[in-house]
């Protein structure tokens, strides 16, 4: 290889020096690093380009290859990778958590870069299923770089990051949906597929709601583990407070705990949580109550009553909506009634939440409130339609009068002109 060392001509010094200077100035917030000069033009898996590394949050904060891999970044060529300068080469998988934790668990160190970042990731990791297996020597489990990436690592707030809420489920699925990879662990591999069918996934992707739950929301990220059977309700309760409160006071809580059943998941499932429809209370394929309860018993009757109430309110609201729609299409102004309809729908939602108390009286309370409002808006819709009819009758009357005038004029014109009433043939009169 032609290097500046074996070229005696001083002119040939210029080119490498120029290249070095360019490299030093080219990458801004970085200390001079010659590693990328070579590694940028190598083939994968050794390839790390400057473009790629410039996206990395560590690089942007001023760290270099040597910060993790050791060596001397100021030297060119293979001299940079000197053992004397602490070069470690490719980090072994079982060394990764400790390496990352070396900085990320050091509060004093991290304060210099981002004081609000947590520093307990490594400790959390050790409590996770991944961490526990890791300690026992399993290198198949996820370590830091599997989720965060390594040379183009982005913070979670970056939507392109592997751990952004938008992408993290897919990151988990790289292992957890791979049946071959997961063989021997004894857990299913359909979670991601199921999650993609859920209403939580829809909230995130279709509605862009970044607060919607994804894998780490319920399982934790560094301390990832399934919530225990008795803790499921607590996890859901973080958002679904009312339902949890009612469930707590209901008979189901004790019953499920006794039976070792996982709370909310029994009826709502865990990964493919779907939009709960009233059919859940029914007797069809989506029905959940009758999986345990016997037909005809007290609970079946309660279920049927609740379903009946909900259906009644739902159809009352829909009828009122229809009527208001017709009124609006005929040009009547019904915005006040529409606002009241929102309150009726609110009552219906509250009633559905109250199902979790499993007490029909409580559900009825909300239903009655909603029915009152729906009745009022229905009446308003009918009044609007009656007003529309009144206007049309008024119009009919006016048009009738106008017709009379037109006939009268026509006859009068004929009369004063003494001819057929075709305009344009009337002679001038004196």
């Amino acid at each position, binding site marked *: 290889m032609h290097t500046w060392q074996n070229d005696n001509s001083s002119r040939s010094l210029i080119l490498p020096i120029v290249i070095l200077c360019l490299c030093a100035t080219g990458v801004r917030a970085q200390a001079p690093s010659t590693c990328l000069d070579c590694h940028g033009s190598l083939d994968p898996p050794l390839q790390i380009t400057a473009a790629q590394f410039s996206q990395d949050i560590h690089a942007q904060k001023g760290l270099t290859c040597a910060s993790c891999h050791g060596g001397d970044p100021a030297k060119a060529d293979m001299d940079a990778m000197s053992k004397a300068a602490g070069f470690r080469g490719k980090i072994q998988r079982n060394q990764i958590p400790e390496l990352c934790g070396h900085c990320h668990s050091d509060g004093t160190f991290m304060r210099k870069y981002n004081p609000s970042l947590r520093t307990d990731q490594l400790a959390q990791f050790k409590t996770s299923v991944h961490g526990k297996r890791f300690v026992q020597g399993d290198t198949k489990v996820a370590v830091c770089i599997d989720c965060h990436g390594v040379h183009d690592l982005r913070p979670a707030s970056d939507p392109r990051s592997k751990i952004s809420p938008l992408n993290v489920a897919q990151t988990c699925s790289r292992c957890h949906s791979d049946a071959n990879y997961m063989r021997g662990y004894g857990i299913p591999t359909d979670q991601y597929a199921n999650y993609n069918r859920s209403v939580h996934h829809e909230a995130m992707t279709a509605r862009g*709601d970044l*607060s919607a739950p994804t894998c780490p929301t319920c399982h934790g990220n560094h301390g990832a583990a399934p919530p225990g059977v008795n803790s499921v309700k607590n996890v859901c309760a973080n*958002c679904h407070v*009312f339902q949890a409160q009612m469930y707590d006071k209901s008979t189901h809580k004790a019953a499920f705990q006794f039976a070792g059943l996982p709370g909310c998941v029994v009826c709502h499932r865990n990964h493919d949580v779907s939009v709960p429809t009233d059919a859940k209370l029914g007797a069809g394929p989506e029905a959940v109550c009758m999986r345990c309860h016997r037909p005809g018993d007290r609970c079946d009757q309660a279920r049927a009553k609740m379903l009946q109430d909900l259906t009644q309110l739902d159809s009352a609201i829909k009828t009122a909506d229809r009527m208001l729609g017709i009124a609006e299409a005929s040009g009547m102004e019904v*915005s006040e009634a529409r606002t009241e309809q929102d309150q009726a729908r609110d009552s219906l939602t509250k009633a559905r939440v109250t199902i979790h108390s499993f007490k029909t009286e409580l559900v009825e309370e909300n239903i009655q409130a909603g029915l009152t409002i729906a009745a009022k808006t229905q009446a308003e819709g009918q009044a609007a339609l009656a007003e529309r009819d009144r206007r049309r009758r008024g119009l009919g009357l*006016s048009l009738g009068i106008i017709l009379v005038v037109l006939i009268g004029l026509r006859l009068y014109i004929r*009369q004063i002109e003494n001819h057929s009433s075709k305009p344009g043939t009337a002679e001038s009169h004196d």
Partner: protein
Amino acid sequence: MAADLSSHPQPARRRVIEIILGGGLFASLASFLYPVLRYLVPPPVAELGGDQVTAGKIGELKPNSAKIFRFGSRPGLLIRSSDGNYRAFSATCTHLGCIVQYRGDLQEIWCACHNGVYDLNGRNVSGPPPRPLEVYEVHLRGDDVVVSLKREA
């Protein structure tokens, strides 16, 4: 032009035509005038709503309590905090549109749907809501607590 009985209508017929025309014209004028006269009478409700509304009366709310009021077609939340001052916000949660409520025990604004929390300045401090609540201006006018939109610059 020969005055011909056949070309001059009978007096009776003439009368009929005149009655039809006269009556029709009168009726039509009445049918135009009637709505105009009704229109001129101001309706009983003079309040237009608009960007300002009377949310309540002074003394109606005790300190550390709140009420929901109607602001045009939107719900609003009027809070009287423990120091006696009034604050008003849009009551529509910025997450999925549920109606928020005031929690006197926590001195915070809370959304029951997914446990979103806002502080007394309307800022979203916890839970799913992505944005603060819209803040309204509150003025005391005589006996009334008047809420209005923040004036455009």
